[in-house]
Structure formats: structure tokens, C-alpha cells
């Protein structure tokens, strides 16, 4: 039995926002795979659940002509995995989705829920940060759009205001620079094959043209209070040929940007070592896929 007094199922977004305002102890529930565990085992107090699943229009997944992708907050992780749009346009997100939880959890867990739970190790965060995602929020004061990079504030905390709901995530299309080839890799380090929270998450996305890097995104998770982009590491790559020396410089810069803690899953020292290893691996792996300096 979950310690909940009230369960409400609004039929519209406006109704949901009104209910979240009316009941100060309320929380929205989507997939429930994090929230219900938190209620039972982590001392999270919430006397009223506002079920978002009855609200229409939050489950869409579409690609626009300009190549941008829009995903409703209630899209499940399983739906992300099955979507050809995601596989083609956001392959890092597809990779990450396949590593989230378990088969059963993925049927219920939602994209919005994964982001709003705001674990520093959130599976979908690094791929979306690497793709410059924005989140659409709706609340009592109306609608606003934030960069995902500004959405995570602290472990478990987001920029959501009281009674505000995340309704969608958008990723801009990949800029089509002439002759550039794009690709990336998502790596998750952890002791188990599934049902595990990452020790380190790395998402890398590169654009290569004329043997040089023209675009670089490196997002790190589980090694700081929030998932983040390693900007110095990215700058170490742009404009340079992607040889071993450049990759090493970027990996070291990423390592220096990480701010991990010691916890039950790993020590800070180990996590810093693994940042360097995984960034090296992800960069080398991506280069192997999209082009080497001598192949241009």
C-alpha cells in the first residue's frame, strides 16, 4: 500500500495544473517507476497524486521538415526505442533508452518522468544535452521553453515551479554543414547489464568534414550534481583533426570538468578515471564511424 490519500485523473492540462495548485502536497505521476519507489522507500511525502496519463496530446513523437524532433513528455521509453524517427535522428537517445531500467520498466517509464526525476545519472539526459534539447513547461503563469542545460538545478531538482508541468522536449535538427558527416556514441558504465544506475554516463556527438572536427558535443552524467556538457573538452576538438593526441586532450579536459562524489556505487577517483576512459572510447568509436583524418 502506498502512503497516498488522494488520486486524481484530470482530463486536460489546465485541469491538472489547477489541481497541482489546489493541493499543496500533490505531485504529478506519469509512469510512476521512480515516484512510487520514492514514496515507499525514500521518504518522499506526497498525499495527492495527479495522474497525467488522461491528458491528451502529450504522447506525440514527430519530426519536422527542418529535421527537428518533438517528443511529448508522456512518450514512454519503450516507444522511443521502437520509433524509427528516434533511431535515425537521435540515435544516442535510442541507445540510452535501451539501457534504461528493464523491459517492464520501459513500458511505463516516460521521457518527461526521467527528466523531471532529475537524477544526475538520468539515462535520457546526456543524449538530449548533446543534441541541444529544449523543454517546454506549462504552469499557472503560462508556457515557457528552457534549454535542457538550464532545467537541471541539483540532484533531484529541476527548474519546475509549483504546479508547473513538463509537456514536451524538442531537439533542433542537426546543422547540415557541407560535406560533414555526423555520428556519436552513448556509453554507460555500471556493474550490471540492466536495472542499474550509471557510475558514469557519456554521450558524444561529432561532426567531421575535411578530416577535421566541425562540431563536438560531449555530455557527462553521474559525475556531478547535474548532467552537463563538457565545454572545454568540446573546444579542444573543434577545428582540429581527430587524431589520438586531440582525443586525449579532450578526454583529459572532460576529466577535469567532472565533479563526482564518493557514493555507494563508486568512488570519485574511479569515476574521474572512467570519464577519461569512456570519453576516449566514445570519441575513438565515433571517429571510426564517421571519418578519420586521412579519409577526410
Amino acid at each position, binding site marked *: 500500500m502506498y*502512503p497516498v*490519500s488522494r*488520486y486524481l485523473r484530470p482530463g486536460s492540462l489546465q485541469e491538472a495544473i489547477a489541481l497541482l495548485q489546489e493541493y499543496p502536497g500533490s505531485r504529478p505521476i506519469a509512469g510512476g517507476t521512480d515516484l512510487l519507489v520514492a514514496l515507499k522507500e525514500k521518504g518522499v511525502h506526497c498525499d495527492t*497524486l495527479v495522474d497525467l496519463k488522461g491528458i491528451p496530446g502529450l504522447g506525440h513523437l514527430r519530426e519536422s521538415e527542418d529535421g527537428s524532433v518533438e517528443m511529448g513528455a508522456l512518450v514512454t521509453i519503450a516507444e522511443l526505442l521502437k520509433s524509427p524517427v528516434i533511431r535515425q535522428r537521435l540515435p544516442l537517445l535510442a541507445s540510452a533508452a535501451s539501457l534504461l*531500467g528493464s*523491459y517492464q520498466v520501459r513500458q511505463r517509464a516516460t521521457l518527461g518522468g526521467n527528466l523531471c526525476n532529475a537524477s544526475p545519472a538520468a539515462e535520457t539526459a546526456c543524449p538530449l544535452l548533446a543534441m541541444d534539447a529544449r523543454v517546454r513547461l506549462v504552469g499557472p503563469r503560462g508556457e515557457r521553453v528552457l534549454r535542457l542545460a538550464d532545467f537541471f538545478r541539483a540532484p533531484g531538482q529541476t527548474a519546475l515551479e509549483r504546479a508547473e508541468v513538463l509537456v514536451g522536449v524538442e531537439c533542433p535538427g542537426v546543422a547540415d554543414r557541407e560535406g560533414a558527416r555526423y555520428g556519436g556514441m552513448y556509453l554507460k558504465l555500471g556493474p550490471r547489464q540492466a*536495472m542499474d544506475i550509471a557510475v558514469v554516463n557519456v554521450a558524444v556527438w561529432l561532426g567531421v568534414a575535411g578530416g577535421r572536427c566541425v562540431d563536438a558535443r560531449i555530455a557527462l552524467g553521474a559525475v556531478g550534481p547535474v548532467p552537463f556538457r563538457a565545454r572545454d573538452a568540446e573546444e579542444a576538438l573543434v577545428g582540429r583533426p581527430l587524431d589520438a593526441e586531440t582525443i586525449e586532450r579532450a578526454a583529459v579536459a572532460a576529466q577535469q570538468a567532472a565533479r563526482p562524489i564518493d557514493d555507494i556505487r563508486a568512488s570519485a577517483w574511479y569515476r574521474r578515471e572512467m570519464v577519461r576512459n569512456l570519453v576516449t572510447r566514445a570519441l575513438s568509436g565515433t571517429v571510426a564511424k564517421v571519418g578519420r583524418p586521412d579519409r577526410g
Partner: protein
Amino acid sequence: MDEVTVRVTVNGEARAVRVPVGMSLLEMLREVLGLTGTKYGCGAGDCGACTVLLDGKPVNSCLVLAAEVDGHVVTTIEGLGKAGLHPVQEAFVRHGAIQCGFCSPGMIMTAVGFLAENPHPSEAEVRAALAGNLCRCTGYAKIVQAVLEASRQLASLEHRRDAIRGGTP
């Protein structure tokens, strides 16, 4: 704690029950409906012993509120195999994939849901699909073999059914 009326189809039968809003689907199945084939293992979505099909998809019933299934369709282990055992259950028996039996309902429900979506899986895909179901007895090998064999059985059943429908031998 408020109560709510849940109208849900369970194993093909329309049910209406009044439950506390904090009750999980797992508790409702076991304690209100008396369907104890679905097991309580961890209560936190880690072990998969509580797996049932919700609208055909395998879910951890400990992480679903009874209130959330109002208007939906649930299938438990008791709902498999209309006349005799389901091919997945038969394969489990044939392969010795059941020892104490506690993980088995969850394993079988996950497998049934998974094979409906992926009828010709590789071994690696089966293992990934079952990664949310823990077994302390078998070491998983026979479970994986059983699911692979069941996939072949189900595929050949479909093939025979289609062949009959299409009129070709």
C-alpha cells in the same frame, strides 16, 4: 485514504472493485481478486516476480496503482493458455526451467509479452528482455532456452495458421 472504483478486465473477465487509492495493482490482484499466481518479490520493480500484462505489455504490477488500470486490460499467469498450457509454459516445463517456481509466473509473462512484440528474437535479445526478472535457482540457462524454443513453436503455429487461412499447404 480515499477509495476508488476500478473497472478493469482481468483475464478476459470484466471486474469492478472498490479499493484504497494507495493499493498497488499487485495487491489488488492477490488480495482483492485472489489471483495469487502473481508474486510479491521486492515491491520496488527490481525483481520482476510481479510481472503481468497491462494492455498486452509486461509491467511490474508493484509499480502500478490499482487506480491506474481503470478502463484497461490485465492478463495474469492464470489467464494464459485457454485449453491447457500456453506454448511458453509448456516450453518452461519441457526444459526444466522451473525449480522453486517463484520467479516463473513473472518470467513467463515477460516472455509472452516480449514474444508478441519480437517473435524471432536472438538469444541476446531474450536475455535483454528478461534482464528485469531475477531467478535465484536456475542460473537462467534453461529459462532462455525455453523462451527461444517457445518463439519457434509460436512462429510455427502462426505459420500453420496462416497457411490454412491462405489455402496453401
